């Protein structure tokens, strides 16, 4: 493709200038520019949270967060990937926990340092009210924290931006686990599906899938995407 055929934009990946076709996602634009992803790419569909990216656009002071596989490049964009946010994930037995404020303070006491600055919410590519769910957890409202954080895919951008060094996605995950285990309990449709699996209802299909070659699998996958 030549520059005069397709509209091109200039982006800066880790400070290096590239001319890339407009309309590409950050991820595709980076690949176009010659980057090969060994980390920081997963489902490519906006579900897995592996491709957390921060960027600034031309003329703006704002540091913004996005998923590289979802965000379309803009002219003059400065891009850096944050493929991993260093954070300790605590080990707990969900069966033994009580769904209250104490459990959050026990495992993640740093939530008490929340400044309510809302930087996490501003960083979230999923448009989740991150600060609100951290605050709900702090006051022991497990249900609210679980519901508000439901769309979290754990990309980690909130955690790298938090001035109080909180890891919000861990809080949301704990809230959702507590909520589903101790407040709503297992739902009927899940129990039904587990029974079906145990009864071998899907065994035949799985066995069939195992015999397919790469092309046939890809065809199935893409048909499934269209069906959805």
């Amino acid at each position, binding site marked *: 493709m030549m520059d005069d055929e397709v509209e091109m934009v200039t982006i800066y990946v880790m400070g290096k200038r590239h001319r890339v076709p407009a309309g590409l996602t950050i991820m595709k634009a980076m690949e176009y520019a010659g980057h090969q992803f060994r980390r920081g790419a997963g489902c490519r569909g906006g579900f897995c949270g592996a491709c957390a990216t921060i960027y600034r656009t031309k003329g703006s002071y704002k540091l913004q967060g996005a998923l590289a596989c979802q965000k379309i490049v803009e002219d003059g964009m400065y891009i850096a990937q944050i493929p991993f946010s260093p954070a300790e994930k605590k080990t707990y037995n969900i069966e033994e926990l009580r769904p*209250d*404020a104490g459990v959050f303070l026990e495992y993640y006491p740093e939530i008490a340092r*929340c400044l309510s*600055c*809302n930087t996490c919410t*501003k960083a979230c590519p999923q448009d989740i009210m991150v600060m609100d769910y951290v605050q709900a957890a*702090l*006051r*022991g409202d497990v249900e609210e924290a679980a519901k508000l954080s439901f769309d979290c895919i754990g990309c980690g951008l909130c955690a790298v931006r938090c001035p109080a060094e909180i890891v919000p996605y861990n809080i949301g995950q704990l809230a959702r686990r507590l909520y589903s285990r101790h407040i709503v309990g297992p739902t009927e449709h899940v129990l039904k599906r587990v029974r079906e699996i145990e009864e071998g209802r899907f065994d035949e299909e799985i066995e069939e899938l195992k015999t397919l070659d790469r092309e046939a699998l890809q065809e199935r996958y893409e048909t499934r995407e269209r069906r959805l």
Partner: protein
Amino acid sequence: MRLPYYPGCTLKTTAQNFEESALASARALGVELVELPRWNCCGTVHALAKDDVMHYLAPIRNLIRVEEMAESGLVDEKRVVTLCAMCYNTLKRANAVVKEDQEKMQKVREIMERENPYGGSVQVVHLLQVLRDLDWSKVADRVERPLKGLRVAPYYGCLLLRPRGFGIDDVDNPQVMERLLEALGAEVVNIPFKTKCCGAYHTVQMKEVVAELSHRILDQASSAGADMVATACPLCEYNLGPRQEEVKKLFRGFAPLPVVYFTQLMALAFGLEEATGFEQNDPDPRPALRARGLLKEES
């Protein structure tokens, strides 16, 4: 009268009895306390460093909620009622600073970005002030079961009274809780340390120090013949109440003394026993209340 109400985190956990008894008692007096929607932790304590802006976001965000609430007609006034002494102090002081300092107000607005700008129209009060404004005779009229013979030592602690200009009452000799207790029919026990610090947040990493300070306060109350101590702060309640376990370790022969929220005594006197929540207090105040004939014997 519907007033905006800011609970604060602890009122939803270890101080549920404070909230429950306060809401029920206020309602009995015709004051509907309407909880703020989407409130966040006030970020206690107040930011004292003069260049601090970040710690104003939390309190001011809540004051924005109050303005939004009033705008949508959920409440009749922009006087936000607090129960927790520390929330009261944090919200009140942050409010005063940004109203005074336009530059700080502007910075807060810019950093918040996604909020409506704070108009500075909110007044922060404590429930005790609301009660005083109602007039004590109105409180006394509502009493169904006077707390006759109950000897209560009011304990204010720090942040309801200090620093100067931010307290709800006279800084050296506050009387508001005394007047309330009298209206409820209780006998007030005066202790010199009613405004001394309980050690506050040192309870996290220096609990022995807190036990020392709490012991001084509790010992004065016991010596003066109090049946219990009344407080208005969930941290004072914790340090004077559950921390008695530590006091016992340091002081041989220490006799436990119940510590209750003033609102619990109000609910009791108003005949709202189901809203008193005494079962959450540690040490248990019920034996002392039974001894004074204010609660039925255990069935």
